């Protein structure tokens, strides 16, 4: 699972770069809950951030072309809902889910 600081993963670096490009500033310093939430989700699904991103993509058998798998994303969405529900209801619980969705979005994966 997580064998090093979460900031050191490529996918997390991509997230930070995306957040900086969109909003400016220093995303994790301004909102340390973001990486903390991702770390909690990684523990919840027993995958590191890069593995989480890789999990959403498959390759076509015929051509080897990489594509975002609907089945895998749906699978992850279920986990995400569980993760959100574990925090209760309302905006705070939703925000918990949204941090993970943001991480995935800035890595090119749309889950909703």
């Amino acid at each position, binding site marked *: 699972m997580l064998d090093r600081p979460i900031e050191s993963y490529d996918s997390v670096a991509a997230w930070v770069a995306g*957040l900086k490009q969109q909003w400016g500033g220093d995303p994790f310093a301004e909102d340390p809950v973001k990486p903390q939430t991702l770390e909690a989700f990684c523990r919840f699904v027993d995958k590191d951030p890069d593995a989480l991103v890789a999990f959403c993509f498959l390759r076509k058998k015929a051509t080897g072309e990489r594509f975002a798998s609907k089945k895998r994303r749906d699978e992850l969405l279920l986990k995400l809902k569980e993760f959100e529900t574990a925090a209760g209801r309302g905006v705070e619980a*939703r*925000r918990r889910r*949204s941090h993970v969705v943001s991480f995935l*979005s800035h890595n090119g994966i749309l889950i909703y």
Partner: protein
Amino acid sequence: MEFTEVIGIRRSIRFFDPDRPVEREKIQKILEAMRLGSCAMNAHWLRAIVVHRSELDAETFEKLKLPVAGVVMELAPVQIYCYGDLSVIARDHGKQPKLLIDAGALAPSHGWTHRFVDDFVWPQVLEPLSKNPGYPVAMAFDNGGCATQGLLMAFEEGLGACWTAFNTEVAKEAFGVPDHWVPHYVMNLGYPLESRDAGGQRPRPPFEELYFEGRVGKPFRRDQAVVQELERRNMIQPPAPLPGRTEELRQLARQLGLPE
């Protein structure tokens, strides 16, 4: 609001106040505006189903959403699902053009008589059209025009709206949609949480790349005096992104607990 300003202020609004209901009379006005749209042969293929999000069971609503449209649909308290009824022409059998003749819209000066409809328009135009593979395209063009009138009415009434796609199979089952209705889009409707200018008028391709005069390749000359007049009349408005838009988007995301 002036007509030009309604066109100018329309944006695809994606942040709605999820808890503020839309008055029934405003929804009716939108539908009334759709009904008055221009339509070939007075066919009026457009059908719409008004759905209040709060009245749908959660499971169905989850399935209706497509990923890209998910947040918009979730925030909008009302959805108007738009369809085209492919059976109109075959069922009507030329009655609508005759209604237009009787109403004084079509006249013999342009060749329109009941006999012309019976002997030519129905058998040689309308009936073949209804069996032509291009028929749904023609229908969709007119339906888009009618639906846009409803969209503009939403803004006239101080609402915001945004077209999105939806899961048509789920909608068919949930709303009892007949087989001969072709799904178009859903109008997501509600009171905007975004500022009125919603960050400014969206980028568009250059005018000269879109419109031509006489033949393709010869752009329709854009007169800057006309542009300035439309700017004065608030149809052409300051382009996006306006200062403060990034902060507004972030504030909205945080307020609603959405991803950043």
